[in-house]
């Protein structure tokens, strides 16, 4: 274990979030045990009031976690200055076996927090606290995952070794390399791109047909597909280097921070897409599927633009 200010701050934020969520957890358990809208006891009134505390906490933690994940990436980026071999966050994430899991769990948790808030808003709009029990049961799951995230984070930072040489993104995402992503890397990038555009077309069809469940499922697939396509097909065009595959370097100033925009579009689009399945039941009105589709389209448009622009400039395809 060694600490930089960024690590201390990351841990501070997560400890704070966890402490607050622990309060919400106690509330959740009490509500699951005793919440009964039909009863007129003072305990029931107290529980109704406490549910506001829990939802405030969840909203706050979500509001902290969204910028914090970008700060986490920044922390990793900075660590790449210290850890030999790392050129960007990619090398630091894979510096030990916990990094990749931690990172994925962080993203999953943000999606779950978002879904929870949708359910919470829906609950406030029912005249009898219809979803209160459901949302706190859901919260228990989230709490366990956040706890896991915290443990993983401690393990990850605890096992960072600055004397050990790690791989840079150049080797990690190289097709010939032996890396965790080697299985995906072995697929022809053109096939990956094809699958990516096919999924996008399927989203369009689902939106036209107004099939929310299908759209939701496709959005769930679109998130990993877009990430993989970004790494193996689109990033060489963004970096203008046939061998440079990396999902993190696009966050750096050399590429005009385009990564932040791309990931924001992708996250909002897929989040609303996934949530669209629950929307009619919870919110009592369907979500306009063109909203998430619009975000997806912007994402697809920007990454495609890089490919076309490169071709227009150089008259060759990179892959």
């Amino acid at each position, binding site marked *: 274990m060694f*600490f930089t*200010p*960024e690590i201390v701050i990351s841990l501070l934020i997560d400890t704070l979030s966890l402490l607050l969520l622990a309060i919400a957890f106690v509330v959740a358990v009490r509500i699951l045990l005793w919440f009964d809208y039909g009863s007129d006891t003072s305990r029931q009134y107290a529980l109704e009031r406490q549910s*506001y505390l829990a939802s*405030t906490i969840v909203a*706050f933690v979500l509001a902290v976690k969204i910028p914090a994940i970008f700060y986490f990436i920044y922390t990793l980026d900075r660590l790449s200055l210290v850890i*030999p071999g790392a050129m960007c966050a990619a090398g630091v994430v894979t510096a030990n076996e916990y990094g990749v899991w931690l990172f994925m769990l962080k993203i999953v948790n943000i999606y779950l927090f978002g879904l929870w808030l949708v359910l919470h808003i829906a609950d406030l709009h029912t005249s009898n606290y219809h979803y209160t029990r459901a949302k706190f049961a859901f919260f228990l799951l989230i709490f366990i995952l956040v706890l896991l995230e915290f443990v993983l984070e401690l393990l990850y930072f605890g096992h960072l070794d600055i004397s050990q040489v790690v791989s840079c993104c150049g080797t990690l995402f190289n097709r010939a390399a032996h890396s965790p992503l080697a299985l995906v890397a072995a697929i022809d990038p053109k096939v990956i791109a094809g699958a990516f555009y096919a999924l996008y077309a399927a989203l369009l069809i689902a939106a036209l047909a107004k099939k929310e469940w299908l759209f939701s499922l496709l959005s769930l697939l679109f998130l990993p597909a877009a990430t993989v396509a970004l790494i193996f097909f689109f990033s060489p065009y963004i970096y203008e280097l046939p061998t440079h595959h990396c999902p993190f370097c696009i966050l750096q100033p050399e590429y005009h921070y385009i990564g932040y925009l791309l990931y924001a579009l992708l996250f909002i689009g897929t989040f609303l897409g996934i949530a669209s399945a629950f929307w009619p039941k919870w919110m009592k009105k369907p979500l306009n599927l063109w909203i998430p589709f619009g975000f997806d389209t912007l994402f697809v448009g920007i990454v495609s633009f890089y490919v076309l622009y490169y071709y227009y400039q150089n008259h060759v395809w990179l892959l």
Partner: protein
Amino acid sequence: MNLKMLAFALSFLRRRLWKNLAVFFVFWALIFLVSSAFLIAASIKKELFATLEELPQIFVQRTIAGRLLPSPVARIEKIEQIEGVEAAYGRVWGYYYFPAAGVNFSIVGLDMDMAGFTPWMDEILASGKEGMVVGEGVKRVLLSHYYKEYFNFITPSGDFLKVPLVGAFPAHTELESSDTILLPMQTARKIFGMPQDQVSDITVRVNNPKEIATIAAKIRVLYPDSRVLTRFDINAAYQNVFDYKSGLFLALMLGAFFAFFILVFEKMSSVGKEERREIAILKALGWRIGDVLRLKFLESSLIAIFAYGLGVVGAYFFVYSMQAPLLRNLFTGFSVLKPRFELIPVLDIGLLLSIFFATVPLYLAATIVPTWRSSVIDPEEALR
């Protein structure tokens, strides 16, 4: 966000100015302290890296039993034969203790071969003058002991060696070089009593910077008794030291953070009768629990944003206009020769983000429970 709510949050803050001012001030002080420490560390790091940019790419030192020893000159040629090495140079350098002032000078011997290393060295060598060129700090010390034109070194055999002072070099990277004396390599050998066939260590320049690590590895194989350092190693080591210092500082601050958390919690929890009544009125006028929460949260956020903005601005002023009295010693240590350097301003978004995340979530988190408590006040009871 509801703009009407924001306008009202401002009005409400104005009303309880004094209650809020206390929390505001403590929070401001906390942010100020954290920001100052971070800024000093960032400045010193920037200055160090400016120095490091001028360093050779690879250093080769000889060690026996963990101690540094002079290297044989023959090794220079051997290293130059490695593929990819552009040139290798022997250096003669060391420390000279000046008992009258109780300080160590860093003495660096220069050779005509070494031209092209740094611009100011080139300039001095081109002038062809005999004698030594010193850093600002050395000049100050010498002047205070009435050495204006020369200095008498005492060699290991006990003889005096008189070296004329021909100039002082520019001081934009003072942190590292203000204690340095530059003189011809032969003079340096005399001062240290070092034989002709030895050098203190060897520096290596390579053609392609991407091969630094590979070449360093080859040198290690060629001379197993050598310690091979690359510019990246030194860079990382310094980065590490300063990260560690700021990290340690933050860790020490955790106690203060905790105290602050309690203070905010206490302050926010003491909801007066007047305030309870007010919340009850708002509810009777059709405000939801969520609306009251939003108002209170906006109030806290406004305090946080103002304290953050003013804390950071204050720290910039303290560190760069006033050169951070007291606090800078935490990072530089006390030294007679080194302290007179300017902190160079650093503007780094990442740094500002770090300060933000270290302080603002902490404050807002402390307000949640008290805010919720006051928002669920039973309006009927509070109005009675």
